[in-house]
């Protein structure tokens, strides 16, 4: 969390740094001070030392902690963080001076003291109007950054080459307060695209459903094909190697389906029992099958049940399957399977 906050502050400093070198030094000093503040707050002896010195310093450190823990999402929190950081600068300056006199042996302390002295000298060199101008200038940049969501990030990057290009025009939208400049000719087009994109996002959220198939025509064709016991297609070569490959594919499909939809797992388990019963009946009709083959058929039936149930999850496809089955010549096994499916449906 602290690292994220530090990176965020550094990113917020990058925009003003690009403008002028004086502010570059200023913000570097601020960043270092903030790092020092966090390190001092984290360590116990520093905290106890600050607490023992004065109540005011204790309050300032206490105020810093919630800001450090929370990720600032609003502009007010950012402004408050900056103000508190600047307040902490003076306090830290005094504190570090005192600490330096108490502990002259620490190398890190001496480094921090040197940085703080440099920052103090910079602060003394800068005048009040400069600091006020900095405050007034940096806030709009921060404001400009926040209203944009991820979907508008492309547009934000697209603006950059156009700022140095043709006629510039500031945006006067109510939701955007930042001085973002775009080509005057493209202003209305961009506004129109934003509205249509927002509308598309809303429509997408309202009608959000995942398709189990890519092509409608192929789906209909697959639904019309005759299926054997366990839901497997009939008119394909049923060699041992082929069955092995198909089993692997079904296993992968089952894994994907389980990962994708957790709410249907209970339905899968319930329907698996019915499928096993139907496979038992099928095995009972032919006593020549050995024990190992019965075990393999049980496992195959269990795997097939998932793919069958996935197709059966939609009422339309289930009804289409029954209608398609009725329209063709059905073997007795399939009739029994159809009956079992009807029972499962109820």
């Amino acid at each position, binding site marked *: 969390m602290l690292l994220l906050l530090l990176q965020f502050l550094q990113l917020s400093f990058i925009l003003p740094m690009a403008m002028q070198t004086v502010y570059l030094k200023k913000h570097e000093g601020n960043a270092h001070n903030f790092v020092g503040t966090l390190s001092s707050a984290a360590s116990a002896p520093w905290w106890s030392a600050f607490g023992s010195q004065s109540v005011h310093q204790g309050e300032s450190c206490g105020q810093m902690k919630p800001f450090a823990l929370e990720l600032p999402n609003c502009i007010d929190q950012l402004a408050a963080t900056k103000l508190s950081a600047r307040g902490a600068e003076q306090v830290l300056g005094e504190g570090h001076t005192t600490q330096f006199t108490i502990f002259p042996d620490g190398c890190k302390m001496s480094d921090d003291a040197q940085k703080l002295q440099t920052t103090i000298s910079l602060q003394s060199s800068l005048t009040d109007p400069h600091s006020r101008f900095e405050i007034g200038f940096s806030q709009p940049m921060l404001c400009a950054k926040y209203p944009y969501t991820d979907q508008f990030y*492309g547009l934000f990057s697209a603006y950059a080459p156009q700022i140095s290009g*043709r006629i510039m025009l500031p945006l006067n939208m109510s939701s955007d307060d930042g001085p973002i400049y775009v*080509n005057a*000719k*493209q202003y209305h*087009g*961009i506004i*129109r*695209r934003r509205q*249509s994109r927002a509308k598309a996002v809303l429509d*997408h959220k309202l009608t*959000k459903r*995942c*398709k189990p198939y*890519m092509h409608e025509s192929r789906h209909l064709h697959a639904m019309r094909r005759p299926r054997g016991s366990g839901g497997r297609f009939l008119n394909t070569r049923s060699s041992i190697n082929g069955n092995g490959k198909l089993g692997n594919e079904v296993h992968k499909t089952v894994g994907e389906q389980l990962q994708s939809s957790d709410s249907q797992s209970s339905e899968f388990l319930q329907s698996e029992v019915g499928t096993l019963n139907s496979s038992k009946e099928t095995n009972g009709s032919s006593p020549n099958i050995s024990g190992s083959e019965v075990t393999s058929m049980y496992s195959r039936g269990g795997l097939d049940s998932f793919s069958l149930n996935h197709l059966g999850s939609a009422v339309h496809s289930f009804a289409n399957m029954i209608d398609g089955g009725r329209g063709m010549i059905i073997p007795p096994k399939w009739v029994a399977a159809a009956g079992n499916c009807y029972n499962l449906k109820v």
Partner: protein
Amino acid sequence: MDQDVQDRALPIANVGRIMKQILPPSAKISKEGKQLMQECVTEFISFVTGEASDKCHKENRKTVNGDDICWALSSLGFDNYAEAIGRYLHIYRQGEREKINHTKKYENPQNQTQINRAPPPPLLLSRVENPPPTNQSG
């Protein structure tokens, strides 16, 4: 969700093929690059088409034609593209007229040959995406 995005965007294989036309044969394009270009291209087409559609709506017309696209490009500040597309549109229409004339002259069984001579539609797409070089259009 990805399927919906893919349905609304251009086919990524065609985007990659068009990107390769401007690169040397030994160059390679990453999948991430193709995906990003796919999004940029889709957004640009929607941007220009929205402008053209807005003009047609104001003039109470229902069909967006080539002239509307040229006008939209120029009104959005893409004057270079508008000039290149204008020249291409002129050449395209000349080809269409010649095709009609040839159809009238020859017999019906030769219509298939004439249809093959028509300029392919993807070329229009490549003209929009590539920067407007004078050599190609000249």
